């Protein structure tokens, strides 16, 4: 019965657009665990590589990581620096005297029998992350999510459950044991799932910009638990949410589940206490209730000294923070760039675009190319043209030919690359010819084993050599005559009728034929105009 009820609930949610009932306010808070990408682990100097598990279980483990009796923790201060960077970027109050505590619980992948965390005096408290309607796609113009605290702690090992010859058993890999984590706890400030989605994306970008974590949910580098409640009813904690869509769907499901309980008058029975629930991909399922909550028996760790920092650390950490993504995006939206939000975000949001280039390198190349183009632009500055030639044409070719951006800069630095964009903008060559030219130059460069230099590239010479200059001076009547020949050769009355009937997209087929005939030397827009004139249709 219960499964049928959940299936109906799930189908109802998936078919309808999710909305909240104004009388039953959705309240969410997040707990985010972020693995730090320090070189070594938190309390030992063994290598921090939690993803080595598949081929080499227990390979990156020291005596301390597997809790050999008698071993003691020794703090890796790189983790402290990473935590300070995050705390500073989130405007949190940094604790100059934080401490580590033991959180006791028994589990196979926790060999010490306790986790070292920061319970009583964490490294930072307070702070906030702000989201904006235009940049982060939330309904509110601006939304501030307040941070409760940030704490440094150990990750656990990993358990793989199998059924072997001796029955069910757990295979324990401790490569992840003692990997540094930051746990971030937010205030229950989220009132809509869009805000949760936006926060996760923004926080992912932040840790990547700070270069303190890969921020990937799929690999478990970032893990998000959600507290969901309605009005003043007790909160339900949701765990085991592997990606953003799981998080969003689990919140939607849980809201509807709680709402149904409240509206049916059963809240006293089913929503009386806090509860922990998991997500099975389709519905939330009960994991623990208040009655079975573990008493963690927190105590200060007697083997670790306080993290005592001088006040100058706060100011100096602030100085080394990179420019925030919001500032970068705003600068691209404004003069002289005037980019769209989408393009501005592509250039500003940190993601591992490719092994051949990173976001920072592409952004820098775009800015310098833009300024060079701006100096020589024949008409008004077309920033979209530069975006297209950097983000699409250039990156596409680098991927196709497997050329790192660093190598590419030897042959086409911004000064030279902007020449190509100006040639296209000026009509000296068509966009199609420009693309062919770029590919040719890069192919030659790659084949030369990156020996060629900037001075070896002569765009004008290449245009003459391959005779790809734009046919801008072609007589209009001659062009019209050639286009009429194309229509005759296509010999497809149905196609012509559909173009005349208003299916203007069909004219693209004729334009394609024209591009082929003129080998890309006549602009596509010009060809389209001539075809439409011949067929006596208006441009739509």
């Amino acid at each position, binding site marked *: 019965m219960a499964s049928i009820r959940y299936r109906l609930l799930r189908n109802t949610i998936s078919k309808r657009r999710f909305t909240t009932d104004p009388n039953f306010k959705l309240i969410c808070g997040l707990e985010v665990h972020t693995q730090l990408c320090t070189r070594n682990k938190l309390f030992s100097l063994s290598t921090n590589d939690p993803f080595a598990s598949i081929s*080499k279980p227990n390979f990156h483990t020291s005596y301390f990581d597997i809790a050999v009796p008698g071993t003691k923790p020794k703090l890796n201060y790189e983790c402290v620096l990473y935590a300070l960077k995050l705390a500073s970027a989130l405007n949190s109050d940094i604790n100059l005297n934080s401490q580590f505590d033991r959180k006791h619980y028994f589990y*196979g992948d926790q060999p010490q029998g306790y986790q070292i965390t920061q319970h009583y005096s964490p490294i930072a408290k307070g702070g906030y992350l702000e989201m904006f309607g235009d940049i982060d796609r939330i309904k509110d113009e601006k939304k501030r999510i307040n941070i409760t605290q940030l704490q440094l702690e150990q990750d656990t090992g990993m358990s793989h459950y199998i059924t072997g010859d001796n029955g069910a*058993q757990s295979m324990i890999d401790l490569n992840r044991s003692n990997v540094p984590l930051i746990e971030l706890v937010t205030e229950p400030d989220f009132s809509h799932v869009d805000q949760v989605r936006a926060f996760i994306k923004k926080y992912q970008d932040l840790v990547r910009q700070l270069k303190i974590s890969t921020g990937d949910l799929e690999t478990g580098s970032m893990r998000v638990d959600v507290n969901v409640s309605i009005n003043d009813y007790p909160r339900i904690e949701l765990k085991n949410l592997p990606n953003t869509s799981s998080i969003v769907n689990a919140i939607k499901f849980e809201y509807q589940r709680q709402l149904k309980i409240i509206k049916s008058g059963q809240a006293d029975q089913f929503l009386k206490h806090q509860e922990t629930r998991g997500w099975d991909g389709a519905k939330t399922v009960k994991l623990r209730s208040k009655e079975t909550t573990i008493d963690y028996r927190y105590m200060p760790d007697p083997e670790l000294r306080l993290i*005592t920092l001088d006040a100058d650390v706060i100011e100096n950490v602030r100085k080394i923070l990179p420019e925030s993504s919001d500032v970068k995006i705003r600068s691209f939206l404004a003069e002289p760039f005037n980019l769209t939000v989408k393009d501005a975000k592509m250039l500003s949001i940190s993601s591992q675009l490719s092994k051949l280039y990173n976001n920072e390198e592409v952004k820098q190349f775009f800015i310098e190319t833009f300024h060079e183009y701006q100096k020589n632009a024949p008409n008004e500055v077309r920033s979209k043209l530069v975006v297209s030639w950097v983000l699409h044409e250039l990156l596409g070719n680098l991927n196709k030919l497997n050329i790192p951006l660093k190598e590419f800069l030897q042959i086409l630095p911004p000064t030279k690359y902007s020449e190509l964009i100006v040639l296209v903008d000026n009509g000296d060559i068509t966009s199609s010819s420009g693309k062919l030219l770029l590919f040719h130059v890069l192919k030659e460069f790659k084949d030369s084993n990156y020996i060629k230099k900037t001075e070896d590239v002569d765009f004008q010479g290449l245009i003459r050599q391959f005779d790809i200059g734009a046919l801008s001076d072609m007589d209009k009547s001659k062009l019209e005559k050639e286009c009429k020949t194309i229509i005759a050769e296509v010999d497809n009355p149905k196609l012509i009728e559909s173009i005349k009937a208003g299916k203007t997209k069909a004219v693209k087929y004729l334009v394609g034929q024209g591009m082929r005939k003129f080998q890309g030397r006549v602009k596509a827009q010009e060809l389209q105009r001539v075809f439409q004139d011949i067929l006596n249709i208006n441009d739509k």
Partner: protein
Amino acid sequence: MKRFGQLTRLASWRTYSVGSKVGRAFLSISELDTFLSRNEWSVAELFDDRGSDATVSKDVVVSLLKMSGLAQDKCIIPDIQRTLKSQISFISKLQRIELRNQDNLDVKYARVLPRHNKPINFEELLSIIEKENKPQSKTADEISGSWDATGLADSSENGYFVVRKGLIKNRD
């Protein structure tokens, strides 16, 4: 180990008490050694649970065993109840001891010996990190693959430690 042995002897020999008190914090290891070498207190008295109203039910013991991943079938529950009662009594006595200037006490520093660290400034922090990240800072066991982590385990398979499922389940 030597000191632990001495403490065990103290616990078994001393049956008298001069009362518990909390004095000023020790300033050095030698002060602590001197204190421990004098017959001023009785462990046995602290563990004496006569007069204690602490109770430990069988259910609590079973729950603790589960939480700790320990088997119930080989335990003598009444013995554990008795031991736990004695330990609770001990903790209660410690908690009842009067502290002077309790309002000014910072629990962060409530240790046998004072532990006031020299604050680390930013330059020192970077210097520590640089030093830690040098390969030669690692001890032998911290070098990946330098030792067989599962070599001494009772149960291992293909480089993994093996834990029986029954131990993982029913831990609440």
